[in-house]
């Protein structure tokens, strides 16, 4: 299933604005203590071949070695790899890795672990390791000629920013643990629970984990990089926002990962530091763009999609649903993704009911009984599938529904839990024949590859929820992976966004902010576009400390 918010996951990335990290806090800082963070999402699995949620990938960032990370400006920076270079016309990549690193059980951590993980994932990418297959695409194999050298061979020239973008999300696993769990054709990799305490090598060791409840991370004193100032980090999961905010106010929590917009004001008043930064999540209005769609084929008409786009009052959505804590969206790659991937030439469609009516009138879709237009002999009346676990959607839908009534289009809410919603959209055998319209959200990563992939033909039955399938677009998608230079890749990425803007598999509704809150007793805690607990780098939890 594809939940969009999970998009953030397998590949994760995202982030942004990072306040400068560890440096500044001088003598006043106290070390030690337990830092407790509340989340409404949580870690769904500790197995990278199964995990879906962003919190899981954020946990991997802190407990497993990863070759590269983002710096504060979202440029690639050394992490487990200290340097890298491409050779052989961009087909071979060589990484130098940290010397004398150790796993938490004392065994040596070397480039051989990285090579083994990559080779295993390539070997089973059509089966057990499908969850990470996107990250190792184009790779033929990897070798570790010595303990600190990793050589990765690609099947052709690959774009440098793309390569680093994939490895930034790629957790290296301890060979001596995971090699025992291959099972038949690697199937054991997916069933290995990887339960706490986990053998890892990051700033923290995960010592205790209870699903849907709590994860406890203890400082790893044998870590090869900058060590955290806190002793323990606890991530506690809440099933409702009120309980989480109440726990924060009672100081049972020190911080909350994402704050509901309605409580920002009261938290500020209660003395908490509320950090509101531009985020990577965008809610969307999905138009089934399956070229072979049987019913309501008028929805494939780009003019109809354009009229719909002009009937959405995004400013009202942002003020009512997000109380202003959201930005106007314009593209599948949200502006906060940084690094210049967002195409700035695309403008948010205007809210113009008269224009929308004019476009539909011109198409000859006359209003029938009840003021509902008739297209190709059928009423323009559609069910809109809405997953119940995206809390902002019901209100957003009501606003859109009222405005669509003004253009003679009837919308009916079909609320389903996210699994049922995706099943209904994809339909039997992933034919995407069973739905017309839907709403959901996507959380983008910093590197644009993942977001651009979800509308390719290859993602039918995978991440696709719009059934968009276009040969020209797919060609551009593979070109951006193999473009010679980052500038060339950016040019293609911008073209792809413009193409989607015109073909509208999604009408973007709002780009909501990432809002976190932290108690005044702590310093060094910064929010990012991907939240404070993120997989961009390890700066937030290594710099947070008691005042």
């Amino acid at each position: 299933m594809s939940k969009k918010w999970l998009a953030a996951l397998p590949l994760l990335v995202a982030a942004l604005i990072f306040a400068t990290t560890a440096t500044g806090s001088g003598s006043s800082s106290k070390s030690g203590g337990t830092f407790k963070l509340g989340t409404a999402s949580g870690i769904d699995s500790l197995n990278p071949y199964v995990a879906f949620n962003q919190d899981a990938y954020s946990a991997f960032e802190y407990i497993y070695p990863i070759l590269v990370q983002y710096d504060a400006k979202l440029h690639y920076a050394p992490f487990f790899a200290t340097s890298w270079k491409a050779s052989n016309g961009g087909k071979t990549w060589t990484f130098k890795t940290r010397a004398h690193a150790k796993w938490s059980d004392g065994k040596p951590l070397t480039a051989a672990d990285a090579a083994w993980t990559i080779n295993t994932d390539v070997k089973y990418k059509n089966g057990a390791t499908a969850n990470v297959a996107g990250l190792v695409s184009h790779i033929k194999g990897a070798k570790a000629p010595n303990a600190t050298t990793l050589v990765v061979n690609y099947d052709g020239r690959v774009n440098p920013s793309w390569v680093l973008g994939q490895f930034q999300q790629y957790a290296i696993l301890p060979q001596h643990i995971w090699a025992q769990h291959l099972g038949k054709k690697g199937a054991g990799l997916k069933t290995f629970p990887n339960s706490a305490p986990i053998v890892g090598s990051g700033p923290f060791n995960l010592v205790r984990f209870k699903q849907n409840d709590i994860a406890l991370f203890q400082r790893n004193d044998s870590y090869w990089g900058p060590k955290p100032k806190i002793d323990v980090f606890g991530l506690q999961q809440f099933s409702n926002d009120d309980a989480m905010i109440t726990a924060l106010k009672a100081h049972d929590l020190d911080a909350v990962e994402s704050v509901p917009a309605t409580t920002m004001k009261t938290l500020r008043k209660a003395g908490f530091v509320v950090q509101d930064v531009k985020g990577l999540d965008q809610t969307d209005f999905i138009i089934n763009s399956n070229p072979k769609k049987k019913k309501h084929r008028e929805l494939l008409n780009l003019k109809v999609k354009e009229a719909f786009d002009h009937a959405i009052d995004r400013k009202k959505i942002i003020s009512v649903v997000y109380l202003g804590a959201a930005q106007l969206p314009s593209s599948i790659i949200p502006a906060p993704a940084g690094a210049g991937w967002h195409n700035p030439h695309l403008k948010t469609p205007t809210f113009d009911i008269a224009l929308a009516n004019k476009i539909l009138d011109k198409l000859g879709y006359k209003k029938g009984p009840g003021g509902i237009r008739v297209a190709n002999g059928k009423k323009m009346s559609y069910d809109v599938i809405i997953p119940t676990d995206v809390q902002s959607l019901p209100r957003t839908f009501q606003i859109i529904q009222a405005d669509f009534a003004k253009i003679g289009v009837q919308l009916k809410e079909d609320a389903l839990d996210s699994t049922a919603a995706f099943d209904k959209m994809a339909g039997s055998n992933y034919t995407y024949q069973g739905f017309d319209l839907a709403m959901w959200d996507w959380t983008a990563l910093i590197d644009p590859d993942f977001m651009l992939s979800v509308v390719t033909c290859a993602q039918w039955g995978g991440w696709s929820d719009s059934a968009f399938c276009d040969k020209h677009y797919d060609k551009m998608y593979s070109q951006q992976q193999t473009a010679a230079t980052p500038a060339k890749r950016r040019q293609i990425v911008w073209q792809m966004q413009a193409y989607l803007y015109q073909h509208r598999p999604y009408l973007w509704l709002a780009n909501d902010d990432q809002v976190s809150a932290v108690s005044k007793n702590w310093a060094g805690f910064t929010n990012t576009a991907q939240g404070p607990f993120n997989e961009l780098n390890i700066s937030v939890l290594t710099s947070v400390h008691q005042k």
Partner: protein
Amino acid sequence: MSEASLLIEAPPEGGQNRRGFVLHTLRHRPAAVIGATILVLVALGAILAQWIAPYPLHQQVGPVFAHPSWHHLLGLDDGGIDMVTLLMWGARVSLVVGFAATLVSMAIGGAVGVLAGYFGGWVDTVLMRITDYFLVLPDVPLMIVVAAIWGPSLFHIIIVIGILLWTSTARVIRAQVKSVRERVYVKRARALGAGHTRIVFTHVLPQVAPLLIANTVLTVAVAIFDETALSFLGLGDPSTTSLGKVIENAFQRAAISAGAWWAIVWPGVLVTLIILGCSLVGGALEDALNPRLRVAHLGARTFRLRPLVGRGQDAL
């Protein structure tokens, strides 16, 4: 306990007739009058919502979670919609669901009770074992499961509640039918050649109908409560505004943490009032109409001693 609470209840003026007894009971039970007043007021507000609600439903009339003010006496909800308007429309949906679901459960409960009581024997055994089965099922979890499987819609909610609330009705009716069946006039009718259908419809049903009515009012309260609970859990029809849905909307947007208590408390108070009204009226009706409660020395609800005198043909 004071002596006053053990007053001997005077027999109703007008003696034998049932209507007189009902009026008498209501007169001596101010609680029932209060309950009836509440229900009438709520029903009026709900029925007249489209004419007397201060603002159109779904229309944003101010900031999200605005405080109560002169223009919006009960404040605004998480969509900037007037709470008074929401409560009127919400009560309408809640009452419709409450009564419709009750109708379903009365039909089932009444039929099962009459069949089991009248025919007895294996019919009774089978129906009562089925009733027992439904009786021990925990209602709310089962409703959640069924509502989740069928999908959210008002019709589904009505059916789900209806098919789970009929058990106590079936048992009460069965007991009464069993007694009616043995009465002399029923035996006479049978001797004269009346068929089962005729006996059930002309002799038995009229005798148990008052019981059924009293039970209905009490069941409405439970049905409204269940509907509110299901809507609050997100299993209600998303396109209708019921009181549970209003509470759920506010809860989803963290109304309590945001300090907007009015978005949750007022619909909660209204549900409580409706249920209270139903219970007060239903209790009084049951007291007045259930012959078993009437012949007891101690009225089940009033705790007043009553004289053991016959009160017409339906007394034992």
